[in-house]
């Protein structure tokens, strides 16, 4: 792992290596990132960029971990076994982006209804429909 990048607070990792690196980040006392503060994704057009925001209570340090997955096959390993907060975060990202987290114990819709939205709202390919009764539909306003 790139120590300078960790010191600078930002780390980019490959989806395949994610689980291993994350485990090291938590378990290695040098890093000691014991909290996953936040987990989200950004639709970058060609790829989904997953953003993991780690925090170490021990060293009082933050780290941003990014991992890119493809739009066509958005699959990545779940970090929920490392940090329990990912249980909720990953379910939300799954609802909103359709990214599949392998190894998540119950990747059920969380904010979406039981059967899901039927679309993935936060993907850029999805545009908000205009308000009913208004003529300026399209830009979501």
């Amino acid at each position, binding site marked *: 792992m790139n120590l300078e990048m960790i010191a600078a607070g930002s780390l980019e990792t490959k989806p395949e290596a994610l689980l291993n690196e994350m485990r090291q980040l938590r378990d290695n006392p040098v890093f000691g990132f014991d909290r996953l503060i936040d987990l989200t994704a950004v639709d970058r057009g060609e790829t989904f960029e997953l953003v993991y925001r780690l925090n170490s209570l021990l060293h*009082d340090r933050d780290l941003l971990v990014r991992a890119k997955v493809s739009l066509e096959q958005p699959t990545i390993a779940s970090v929920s076994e490392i940090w329990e907060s990912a249980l*909720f975060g990953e379910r939300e990202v799954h609802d909103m982006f359709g990214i599949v987290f392998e190894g998540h114990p119950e990747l059920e*819709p969380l*904010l979406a*209804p039981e059967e899901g939205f039927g679309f993935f709202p936060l993907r850029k390919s999805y545009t908000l429909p205009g308000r009913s009764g208004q003529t300026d539909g399209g830009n*979501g*306003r």
Partner: protein
Amino acid sequence: MTVKLTHEGVTASGSELYCLNMGPQHPSTHGVLRVVLELDGETVVRAIPVLGYLHRGIEKLAESRTYPQFIPFTDRLDYVSSMCNNLAYCQTVEKLMTVEVPERAEYIRVIMAELNRIASHMLFIGATALDLGGMTGMMYTFRDRERILDLFNLASGSRLTYSYVRIGGVMNDISPEFVNLLRAFLADLPGMLQEYDDLINGNEIFQARLRDVSIVPASRLVSLGVTGPVLRAAGIAYDLRRKKPYGIYDRFQFDIPAGTVGDNWERYLMRVLEISESAKIIAQALEGLPEGPVMAKIPKVIKPPVGEVYHANESPRGELGFHIVSDGSTKPYRLHIRRPTFYNLGSIDALCRGVKIADVAAVLAVLDPCMGEADA
């Protein structure tokens, strides 16, 4: 979500489990939270939170609004601490644009955020009392919270959805009348707290209901991503106002109350103690309130540079963070909100296991969820 239950299962004592649906329409779920409880008699074996009944897609809405236009939407996240949400969002955008906020505005922001914290905690105390069956306590805290809302009304013209904090400053200056009323409120606050103490906190039944209930080790809460008073009650004095002082919080003297046992009682007590600490901060801010403008010189059309920023505030419920990805246009490319309630609710299962049904109401009360925020 489809709730998969294992209620074919039996417990070690041989009794059959059953499932109880608490919410989304239930007197003590603080809005539209649903908790599916798996019960062995009166004891909770598993609790599954079901969210999303108030999901409005605020993150997607943000992508079609300009940066200032999104401020009113932050009001509607955690609608009992709108000022804190406004503040967190505006500071995030300011961080992205590197705007220097005038001194007076900074002080006013601190006053408002801390007042809102007091208002939120007052609501919490009342709601907890109500959830434990003591309705009168709620009336008293709401009566006193009203005074804060009146202050906000005076400053911003609104009692709940303030949109008061703006990018680069605040909406408008506070009047001398506001300062006077605020001083009067601060003077009365110890009396109010004494009354809560006599009626609610000091009541032995109330204490017995909360003490030694749902103790979860701090490490588990850390792993669950719990922040705010619930985490502090477990003994981790993690407060962003102290750890990563945003705005001008590094100028004030205040304590971060932290618990030792981490039971419901301490989770409750954290809020009570935080009220006095917030009052201390407000008093100091009033003392140091400088003259000057309340709005920075910012362009009419806000176009932050291309970039990515994350900024977190300590909201009354925990770490409230905004993650903004800017593509250089007037609208955010992606806006993500790290909602404290959302992650705190993830700990319901951990907190509820082994407690009685009655304590589920207590656990929900001390988590102080605001469903507008959890579901965004």
